[in-house]
């Protein structure tokens, strides 16, 4: 029994139907972790990108190193790090929150690169034309550079959202009960792993397919030339 649900081992179909509610509760956690992890990644990535753009080497180099370090080390170890170390410093967070923060940090290393590349991809001529028209730095960024960078940045960020969905099962290693964790517990208790794990696989396929369709829709809706400003 799990979350107050019984499972029915009489037939494969009955088994599948009886564990579906459990898996869907896990899916709720999966989606929560994804969304909040993504939000943190977007915000933190922006901070990193801005700091790396600072002309002062004493700032940009350490940040670059941190970003590279986070990017090249496994999410699992970073997860262990936050989960086991933070309490020693007085910050005791529940497993889910710890997982969300870890996802946010790991993916901020990717999103900061997306921001940087997106801004850089705007043709140089745009900046020069803005200069020639005497627009000023803030105006240039707000009305010329950023609107043209967004159509590039948004799909790239959205693709990382899909990646986060696929990384959430790692949180099960610190006892977060998302989809895979739920399936594993059902399997551990009934010794029948095939059905729960296959179902979870199918659910992931559905989740990523839905997200991918949303990304394609977004790509279509975003005008290539940049966000229209009237």
């Amino acid at each position, binding site marked *: 029994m799990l979350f107050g649900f019984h499972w029915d081992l009489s037939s494969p179909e009955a088994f599948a139907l009886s564990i579906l509610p459990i898996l869907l509760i896990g899916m709720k956690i999966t989606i929560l972790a994804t969304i909040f992890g993504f939000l943190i990644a977007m915000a933190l990535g922006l901070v990193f990108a801005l700091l790396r753009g600072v002309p002062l080497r004493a700032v940009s180099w350490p940040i670059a190193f941190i970003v590279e*370090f986070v*990017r*090249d*080390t*496994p*999410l*699992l*170890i*970073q997860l*262990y*790090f936050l989960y*086991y*170390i933070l309490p*020693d410093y007085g910050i005791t967070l529940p497993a889910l929150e710890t997982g969300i923060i870890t996802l946010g940090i790991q993916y901020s290393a990717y999103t900061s690169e997306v921001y940087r590349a997106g801004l850089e991809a705007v043709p140089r001529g745009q900046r020069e034309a803005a200069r020639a028209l005497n627009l000023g730095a803030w105006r240039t960024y707000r009305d010329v550079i950023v609107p043209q960078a967004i159509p590039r940045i948004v799909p790239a960020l959205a693709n990382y959202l899909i990646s986060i*969905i*696929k*990384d*959430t*099962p*790692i949180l*099960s*290693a610190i006892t977060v009960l998302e989809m*895979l964790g739920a*399936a*594993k517990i059902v*399997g551990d208790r009934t010794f*029948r*792993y*095939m059905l729960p*794990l*296959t179902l*979870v*696989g199918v659910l*992931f*396929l559905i989740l*990523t*397919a839905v997200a991918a369709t949303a990304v394609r829709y977004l790509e279509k809706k975003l005008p290539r030339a940049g966000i229209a400003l009237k």
Partner: protein
Amino acid sequence: MDWLSLLPPLLYGAEVTAWITLASTAGGAILAFAAGIGSTARFAGWRWLAGLYVQIFRGTSLLVQLFWLYFALPIIGIRLSPEVAGVLALSLNIGAYGAEVVRGSLNSVDAGQYEAATALNFTPIQTLWRILMPQALIEMMPPFGNLAIQNLKDSALVSLISLADLAFAADNLRNRTLETLPILILTLLLYFAMALVLMAAMRLLERYLRGVSGREATR
């Protein structure tokens, strides 16, 4: 807090991680080329198969795939050791991403090359291997480099099916000695060091291919 005494068990684990990463990257490369080329095949059946493989393994989580191979397969009689399950899962996963890279690079070769090859009457296989692939390979290297690093990071997940890699050694050591902070810092540093080595190796490979193909990647 004798950090040095913590190193040997971690280094043992790191060695296992290195082997697993190399084996699965090689396996993944083979699958990537097979599926990437398959997706451009004349015969619709190959295209469909390649597409299905890529869709499934890119659309689901690596950990789910790993657990499925290790926990679910025994139900139908296929009992894989942690090593086999781990390398297989990693290969299948990274191969699916690699297949998209191969497919994209092949498609990005200028159509005129294919036309010139037809004009000179090369067979489709000759065209693929002698003309298209050498040009596509150089385009594949930067993304392949990223995938190799990703594979190294993903390898840590095999610790969750009790494979004695670096992540497993770290968790084990943590349980035994409770010196959590130094252990995890050392572990992170070891992974980072391996990543740097891997990046350097990929860069050397790229340079070698560039010399052989006579042209630069357009990054």
